[in-house]
């Protein structure tokens, strides 16, 4: 791990610690611990969304804005199946399958048509797909207050004198587990090696005989599964509403930017710190109302910081 990476890690930890000391330092942990727990859970969701984006972006050059919409479609399907009395584990699986199918459809059928266009055009095209999914989902399930229960909501775990629901722990553990898993996958398997090669130089990898379509399909698949899982967690922990879940991509982008669209570990730490800062801002009387913009402000500052003194250069591709 290079010096720069360690420094970046520390920046996020320091930001989180600073916000904590400022707003929660003088209050007992019994009160403030709740905010830490919910912040880590929300932050895990941001990080999960960001990880899905970064994995796909690195392998295929597509920044997928439709991950939220795919997650929303999955979560609504899970809710609907639940209403029909389907065995719960099947509904969760359905959520992931729907998100996976939608993402793979885009990755196999539409993304190749834009493979040689500018990065920003590829990204914007996924917005078109997101609008289509969002329109269909809102058409099928009209606006209505709904909620998605998971059995883990009922299980509480005592940690440091706090009762934390197992769903939150699950989201947190999943975020960490997935980062470790993907890191191992990229570092230890042949497909992972190929994926890193494609991320570095797509055309050179093709010349070397790497099956680009297969590698990209796997990346789309990973991102689809992550979209489904994040959608399910988001629907449970925050709100089951298609528009809200669709636009969870915006804080996910903030988390992805925290890792400069590149480093998974930084996406995780950045996402977690954004969640905690957002949550702890509830304690501030003036900033309480606008706390959801905390991730965006942090991401913008990170971008500014990352390009200090930098100039647009000839290096790299357009």
């Amino acid at each position, binding site marked *: 791990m290079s010096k720069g990476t360690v420094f970046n890690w520390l920046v996020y930890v320091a930001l989180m610690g600073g916000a904590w000391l400022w707003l929660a330092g003088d209050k007992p942990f019994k009160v403030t611990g709740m905010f830490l727990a919910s912040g880590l859970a929300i932050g895990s969701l941001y990080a999960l969304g960001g990880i899905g984006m970064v994995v796909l972006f690195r392998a295929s050059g597509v*920044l997928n804005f439709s991950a939220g919409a795919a997650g929303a479609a999955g979560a609504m399907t899970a809710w609907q199946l639940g209403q029909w009395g389907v065995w719960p584990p099947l509904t969760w699986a359905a959520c992931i399958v729907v998100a996976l199918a939608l993402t793979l459809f885009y990755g196999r059928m539409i993304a190749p048509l834009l493979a040689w266009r500018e990065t920003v055009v590829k990204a*914007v095209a996924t917005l078109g797909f997101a609008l289509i999914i969002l329109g269909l989902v809102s058409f099928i399930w009209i606006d209505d207050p709904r909620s998605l229960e998971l059995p883990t909501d009922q299980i509480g775990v005592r940690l440091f004198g706090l009762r934390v629901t197992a769903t939150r722990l699950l989201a947190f553990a999943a975020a960490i587990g997935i980062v470790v898993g993907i890191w191992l996958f990229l570092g230890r398997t042949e497909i992972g090696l190929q994926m890193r090669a494609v991320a570095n130089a797509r055309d050179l990898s093709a010349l070397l005989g790497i099956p680009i379509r297969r590698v990209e399909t796997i990346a789309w698949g990973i991102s689809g599964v992550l979209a489904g899982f994040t959608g399910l967690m988001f629907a449970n922990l925050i709100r089951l509403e298609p528009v809200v879940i669709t636009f969870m991509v915006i804080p996910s982008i903030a988390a992805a930017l925290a890792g400069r669209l590149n480093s998974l570990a930084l996406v995780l730490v950045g996402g977690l710190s954004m969640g905690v800062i957002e949550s702890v801002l509830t304690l501030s009387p003036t900033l309480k109302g606008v706390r959801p913009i905390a991730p965006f402000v942090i991401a913008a500052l990170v971008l500014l910081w990352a390009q200090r003194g930098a100039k647009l250069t000839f290096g790299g591709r357009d």
Partner: protein
Amino acid sequence: MDRSLFRITPSGVSGLTFAALCFVFLPMLAGSYWLSIFTSTTIFAMAASGVAFMYARLGMVSLTQVGLMGVGGWVMLRLNHLWDLPFEVNMALAALVTMIFGWILALPALRMRGLYLALVTLMAAGGLEIIFATYQFPNGGEGFWGVKIGSTNPFRRPMLAQSPEAYLRYCIVIATLGFLFIEAHRRLFPGRAWALIRRSEAAAMAAGVNVTLCKTRDFGISVGIAGAAGALLAGSLGLLDDGTFRSSESIMLFALAVVGGARFWLGAVIAAVLFRVLPGLLNTWGVDTDLAFVIFGAGLLHALITAPNGIAGQVYDLVAKLRGGKDDRD
């Protein structure tokens, strides 16, 4: 360069004729319901022209145009309830403040490649949505945010345009001026610089183009136009609602600017008509308005993949074909 500033093109003539026809006939034909729809369509056409210009000339994607209209509208309402300045002065100030605000927002991205501006503006759209929902728009109350519960203080419309009909005409004139301003800007600065940046920033730099300055200037113009459009929107009803400025609206306006055809004035008009009129029509026909999302999304994909000049480009191609092959775009 100056010699060509007042060059008359067929597209320009048809655009001005269209604006003149709208100016004369639209207020006469429309009932009060359609009057307000046409007014907001005109205003959104103006805002769409800003995004379209940036996308067509520089390939820059701004996903927060409607959010920035909200900023312009906020400043407009704030000034209206604060001092007794004329409408036009308030509108100019709203455009200026929005422009500065836009520059601050885009600061992290202007020195980076195109993708980052899209990301930063998308985050800005999300952030503005939250801010508007939290603080609402000024309606004559006390304090910085100027919000009070219940009644709303009166809004002063421009001296020239007190009635809704006159206000629609007023908006058409301002929107036309906005289009002409963009066109003048396009003619005054070397088109090669834009073409180079669009093609490759590295090549543009090698040719001596100041890429950052060029992007900053054009983004500022687009944002300033959004600010003025927001100010006009505030004048339409005298108050604003945060639901108008959601991030999904910004995304749709961008999508429609591409669908309409970002290179042409007609494209911005088509975008605004689809944006404001299509949901209304779907509603009238008893079709779920959510399906508008599906149509717009599919339109965006179609335009990006196979029809880079959008609907307007296809219309122009058709006209050119009918007239015997001469291509008279721009």
